[in-house]
């Protein structure tokens, strides 16, 4: 299954997308199974299963994902039950309902979001607090309702 990712790791994700049309799974769509691919993806419907995209993933308001998610960046406005592994930023927006562990370069949790899980993000502590020379790693047991 990794072939799709491997070929595109270096070359970016332009090669696979002939046109610039966005990948959208509409509000009435239900998927039970696995979703893989290159390119940005917006989920407005209901997904039960693993989601792995090389691109940004956007779970819209009303969207519902039950399964683990891997993407370069993740924005959650809908509901997600599962772990997130992002290369870039993870944004949990107001109104989102999220349960699972988040991993990314940065994690943002907006006021009004419901979140249960663990947050793991690399960051550098500001001068004075930095006693481990920039390789500090948070392992925060964040819990918020």
């Amino acid at each position, binding site marked *: 299954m990794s072939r799709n990712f491997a070929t595109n790791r270096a070359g970016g994700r332009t090669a696979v997308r*002939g046109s610039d049309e966005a990948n959208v799974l509409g509000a009435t769509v239900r998927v039970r*199974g696995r*979703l893989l691919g290159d390119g940005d993806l917006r989920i407005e419907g209901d997904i039960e299963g693993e989601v792995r995209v090389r691109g940004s993933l956007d779970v819209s308001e009303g969207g519902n994902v039950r399964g683990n998610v891997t993407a370069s960046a993740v924005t959650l406005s809908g509901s997600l039950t599962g772990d997130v592994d992002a290369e870039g930023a993870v944004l949990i927006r107001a109104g989102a309902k999220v349960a699972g562990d988040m991993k990314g370069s940065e994690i943002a949790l907006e006021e009004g979001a419901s979140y249960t899980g663990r947050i793991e993000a690399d960051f550098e502590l500001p001068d004075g607090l930095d006693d481990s020379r920039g390789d500090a790693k948070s392992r925060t047991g964040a819990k918020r309702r």
Partner: protein
Amino acid sequence: MAATVIGQGIIIEGEVTSDEAVVVAGTVRGKLTVDGAVTIESGAVVEADIGATTLSVGGSVTGNVTASDRVDLLTGGKLIGDVKAARVTIADGAVFKGNVDMDL
């Protein structure tokens, strides 16, 4: 523009259902059930049984197909499987292997 676009780089393995039109330019393996129009674009690969109101095939489909309205197999399209629909067209240059049942 359809509500759902499964683009060129996307692979779905499993069951997909929708109440609105679906355009497939990527890969779907499993089952595709849509209460609306399904468009399989050129370059798309679908290895799934398809249920739809109308189905238009410009890409490659392997699986049995049922449409309450019609099935159009376009030039360059490839369909391997049985077709069940009230109206069926097969364009010149299309590839088809299977049975057609227009007795709905």
